[in-house]
């Protein structure tokens, strides 16, 4: 891959006599011998209007080919350039081989519009500006003192670059481009496949959730579900604490002469009444029960110890 952002092209005037370039990067100015140019007065004022008429202007005067047209305005008249992209492409591919690359292609008509008089382009030809039309004429017809190199030096190119489709400045070759495009496509496809798979799996999860609800005969809405969950959890805790209390009281180590008189367990409170031998036993029994239960209160009355625990 060549440098993408740096522009270091050399300006080259291209005529049929230009030698073949094998390396370097070029902005090419096409000699008038590669296109046709006419200066005409038309009954339209816009460039687009003139462009629509361009083909009819050249009707019958061009050789066979697929021509494109470029229009510019000089004073009240239009300069119409007719060019065949295919033949220009052929010339470019013929003149720029191996590592030589073309950054941009321009018409001499646009680039030398400000040419005063003429300039020699090679040993036999000159470029002249005749009534704003840039022509290539035999050198003998002109008295050129300046060579084209003088004009190309520090030449600032116009914005009238033409596109041929295949011989413009290639930052990557077609093969490299296909490789990059294939990589992008594979990456894109894998992302899309993953995205679709995850989205589809998400939908499956929703279905599975519905199946779980149906299978376990549970309500559909989360509000109903939470309500039933709270209710069942509360019931479970209460039932467990009632059973634990009865089991815990029945496992109390009582001394001879001591016995449980009454056990009462409900969701509201748990009470155990124990007949004990003396008051000292109150603390021992409470200590024992507090390992398993939270004692709310205790009353000792005539050897009867009443303990309330939290449910």
């Amino acid at each position, binding site marked *: 891959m060549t440098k993408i952002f740096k522009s270091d092209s050399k300006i080259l005037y291209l005529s049929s006599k230009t030698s073949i370039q094998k390396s370097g990067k070029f902005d090419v100015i096409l000699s008038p011998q590669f296109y046709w140019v006419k200066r005409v007065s038309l009954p339209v004022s816009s460039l687009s209007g003139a462009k629509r008429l361009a083909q009819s202007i050249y009707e019958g005067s061009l050789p066979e080919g697929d021509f494109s047209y470029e229009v510019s305005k000089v004073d009240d008249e239009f300069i119409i350039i007719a060019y065949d992209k295919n033949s220009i492409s052929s010339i470019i591919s013929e003149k720029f081989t191996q590592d030589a690359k073309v950054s941009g292609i321009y018409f001499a008509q646009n680039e030398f519009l400000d040419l005063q008089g003429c300039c020699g382009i090679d040993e036999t030809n000159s470029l002249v500006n005749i009534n704003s039309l840039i022509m290539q004429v035999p050198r003998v017809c002109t008295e050129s003192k300046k060579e084209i190199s003088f004009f190309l030096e520090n030449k600032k190119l116009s914005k009238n670059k033409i*596109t041929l489709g295949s011989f413009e400045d290639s930052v990557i070759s077609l093969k490299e481009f296909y490789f990059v495009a294939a990589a992008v496509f594979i990456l894109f496809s894998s992302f899309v496949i993953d995205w679709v798979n995850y989205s589809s799996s998400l939908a499956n999860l929703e279905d599975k959730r519905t199946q779980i609800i149906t299978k*376990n005969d549970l309500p559909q809405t989360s509000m109903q579900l939470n309500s039933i969950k709270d209710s069942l959890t509360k019931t479970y805790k209460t039932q467990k604490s009632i059973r634990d209390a009865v089991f815990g009281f029945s496992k109390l180590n009582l001394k001879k002469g001591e016995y449980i008189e009454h056990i009462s367990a409900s969701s509201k409170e748990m009470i155990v009444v124990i007949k004990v031998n003396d008051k000292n036993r109150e603390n021992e029994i409470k200590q024992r029960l507090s390992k398993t239960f939270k004692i709310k209160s205790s009353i000792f009355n005539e050897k009867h110890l009443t303990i309330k625990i939290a449910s």
Partner: protein
Amino acid sequence: MTQKRFILFVVLSLVLLLFVYIKKEGAKKEYLVQKVELLAFEKEAKELAVLKNKYKDKKTTARLISSLKRIKAPSKDFTKQDIRVLEFEKLDIRALNQLIKKIQNATFVITKLEIIRESDTDAKLRVEIKK
């Protein structure tokens, strides 16, 4: 391919890839979260189903009450609103232990349980069961 077109291609490709990647990652994250939530929900649903069957199965409650009555015929057996009350009197230690063990393992909903000493050898048990 020209520099401009190549840059355009690269930029568009990156934008497109970034868009699809963000969408994919979003869907992935959502899927993983939902999957974890579903597993938790499945576990919770099973627990709820067990609890629901445990406490709301009237047939099982009736069967368990019958099994209590087989240990000792209750002196009182009546229904007050939606509460079934069973009272067992003059229970010896063996019958009392059998009843307590049965009640402890039973899955019906007890609203109140009372055990009262009647004499040195006998006790009374009163259990209120939600129908």
